[in-house]
């Protein structure tokens, strides 16, 4: 397994390198000059020149690129152009909220989804299956930001059960703050994962070993949860990986609506203010997130189905 991990990490290196290069190019293609953004409408050319020098934008592009690569390599994200805060500290502040949102929404989604998927598969073609299917289709169809807005209006504004915005402080308070946003994101996850569970379980239920287990007189729940589900989980894990990555997208709009801190909103503000160091850090973090999630999924894959590891 460690060989697999090592080879995956090595695989990720050229990807990361290309991502970094792409980010660098993309940022220089963004219209707008950070120095002008910082100085406002009345800046003089002398001021702009001085500011560019201060931000390290006066050296040739290739030097900026090398410096950028080196800094990324050493995890030195520098200081925000806009508010001179350390970008590493900004990431440190925002990342936990995004991770928290991802974990809680994934947990909520999965906890709801797997039993749903199982019920749908075992009651195939019956009303329960239809209802589950409708639920999952609805989950796909409702935009997360729309659901978020509805939850916010109903439960925070009208009923006052949940906080209006912010990230909260201390474990209990943070969980309290993350609940509604996580529900908004969990819905689509539940939809996705329950469908995957259903189809994957249906496939497995037709396999010989399940029939054997049934023939041996195993009780149905035992057959399903012990034998079938474990085998059916394989595609579900992959699906979960994909869905975690899609949370990153969803989190941008959700953070926006719920006024939560997070990497998504940090990145959007960074782009708006042409804050290169913040954009760089945000995208590097996102890319790392993707690499790490994929890595974990691969390892989990091996864990659930050791044959995969043997083949490699």
């Amino acid at each position, binding site marked *: 397994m460690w060989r697999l991990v090592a080879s995956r990490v090595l695989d990720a290196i050229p990807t990361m390198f290309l991502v970094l290069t792409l980010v660098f190019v993309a940022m220089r293609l963004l219209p707008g000059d950070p120095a002008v953004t910082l100085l406002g409408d009345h800046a003089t050319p002398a*001021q702009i020149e001085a500011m560019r020098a201060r931000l390290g934008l006066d050296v040739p592009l290739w030097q900026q690129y090398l410096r950028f690569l080196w800094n990324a390599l050493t995890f030195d994200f520098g200081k925000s152009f806009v508010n001179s805060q350390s970008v590493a500290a900004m990431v440190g502040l925002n990342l936990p909220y995004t991770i928290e949102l991802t974990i809680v929404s994934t947990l909520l989604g999965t906890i709801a989804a797997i039993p749903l998927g199982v019920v749908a598969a075992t009651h195939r073609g019956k009303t329960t299956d239809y209802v589950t299917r409708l639920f999952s289709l609805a989950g796909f169809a409702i935009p997360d930001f729309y659901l978020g807005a509805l939850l916010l209006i109903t439960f925070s504004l009208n009923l006052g059960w949940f906080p209006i915005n912010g990230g909260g402080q201390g474990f209990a308070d943070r969980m309290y703050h993350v609940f509604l946003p996580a529900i908004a994101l969990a819905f689509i996850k539940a939809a996705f994962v329950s469908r995957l569970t259903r189809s994957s379980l249906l496939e497995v239920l037709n396999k010989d070993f399940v029939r054997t287990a049934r023939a041996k007189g195993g009780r149905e729940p035992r057959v399903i949860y012990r034998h079938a589900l474990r085998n059916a989980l394989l595609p579900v894990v992959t699906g979960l990986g994909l869905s975690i990555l899609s949370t990153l997208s969803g989190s941008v709009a959700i953070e926006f609506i719920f006024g939560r801190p997070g990497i998504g909103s940090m990145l959007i503000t960074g782009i708006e203010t042409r804050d290169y160091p913040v954009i760089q850090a945000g995208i590097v973090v996102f890319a790392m997130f993707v690499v790490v999630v994929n890595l974990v999924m691969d390892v989990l894959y091996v864990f659930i189905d050791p044959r995969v590891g043997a083949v490699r």
Partner: protein
Amino acid sequence: MRPNRRQFLGASIAAAAAGPFLPRAQAQDAGVMTFALAARSANSLEPAVVVQGADNWVNMQIFDTLVRPEDGTFAVTPGDFKPSLAESWTSSADGRTWTFQLRKGVQFHGGYGEMTSDDVKFTFERLLDPKRPVDRQPLYAGTLESITAEGPSTVVFKLKRPDPLFCGSILYTRGGCIVSRKASTERGDKHAMNPIGTGAYEFDRIDPANGVFLKAFAQHWESPPGVPELRFSYILDTTARTLALLAGKVDMIEGVRAPGWIPSIQARKKDLQFDMTAPGSINTLHMNMTRKPFDDLRVRQAVRYAIDKEAIAKSLAPMGKPMVGLMAPTYAGAVTEAELPAELRYKYDPDRAKKLLAEAGFASGLSFANYMSTREDYSSNMLIVQEQLRKVGMNMDMSMIDHTTYHLNNRKNLNTLVMFSSSYPPTLAQIFIDQLAKESEVKADGTGGINFSHYGAVMPGIDGMLEALDNEPSFDAIVKSVQQMEIQILRDLPVISLGSLSYVIVRNPRIDLGYKVRSGYAYWPLKRARVVKA
């Protein structure tokens, strides 16, 4: 969706049931006042550097200026200024030498000692360093010749040109916030995130997750503020910010300057208080005369007749007000409609607009491309303008771009109809110098100014009159001249004023501001505020 009694009851039961889980609502604390700003974070608490509007709110509480207007007003004439860190002042007959006697015993925060003439000298001299990122540097550099400390409590300013409104144009500005030489030098760049001033509130800490915390400065030269702790939180999203206020989580928020916003939140919570400045910002629409067909006066007049200022103002009520020229109606130098010759009153008249277009050869209408900022006040104004122009056959093909890029494109002369929102104190000719003088002409390489219409360059403008002002020490003479410029601009129409738009703060009624906000900059002092309902 209107809240009814049952919902409120439900909410309180839920709150009781949730018990320990519910974080204590900050806004209910009698010793704390919370203000949600429309920004992502505090960017700079170095007052002279600030370009983000929200930061001014914080700086306003931390710093004092030498003179100030009555709270809640703009000083319109030189006599309207009140002593602050300066106790008294005199100016020479030619308006070029100003001498200030400083208040004695004023303390800086954090044990940085007494404020002296040396700190004042330092404050203003640093504005002149061409490499420093000082906002509106040309204004300071163009006015200040020298600053001399004569003894510990006398400061003498020598000006390059006479300026009867020196107190307003230079002293009561962000750059005029007095900083400590010692603290600024010692802290260097870090001063921007850990500032030292003499204001009623001193900086306590920045918590990136929760905002900026200020505490009452017990040694302030006036009486200390009424609320011991002042918190600024940062909620950029307008909906989230509004919700925070409605839920009582914050006491004050920066308002949303979009049509219908005020009536809609008033419907939700009837007792909300609105503090509004008049005029607020002046929204101008520059017509780029280097681009066809806006080089044709008839086309510009058509635009002017097509725009219904009254309707714009009404949709933005109560924040929006129609304007005649570029000077706000409350400012000295403004012209009223009655004073104008009939042909310069430009009453809303779409038929006339169509006729003018036909005369200019566009009987079947015309199309042009235009950039627009996504910022709410810009986009709402311009969407209205776009629709009004469409009605007379002018099709504005609009590209919405983010605010940064929008300004950059404007500065590079890439735009056709440039909306520009600016805020000026009642200093007389500044808006003309900035936006209509030949020397401020926008340049394709971005090094020019913000005269987006090229007035004075592609056609004779008001430069002669502006030049004459340079050596004019008489306030009344300047007022006369400004009125003449207004009329000249209405005749040539390089620019149209779309109206003024108030800055608005919405306040929970548990806070009493202590005075009435009438005019002034987009930020004001909070030291007189009190919590009236716990």
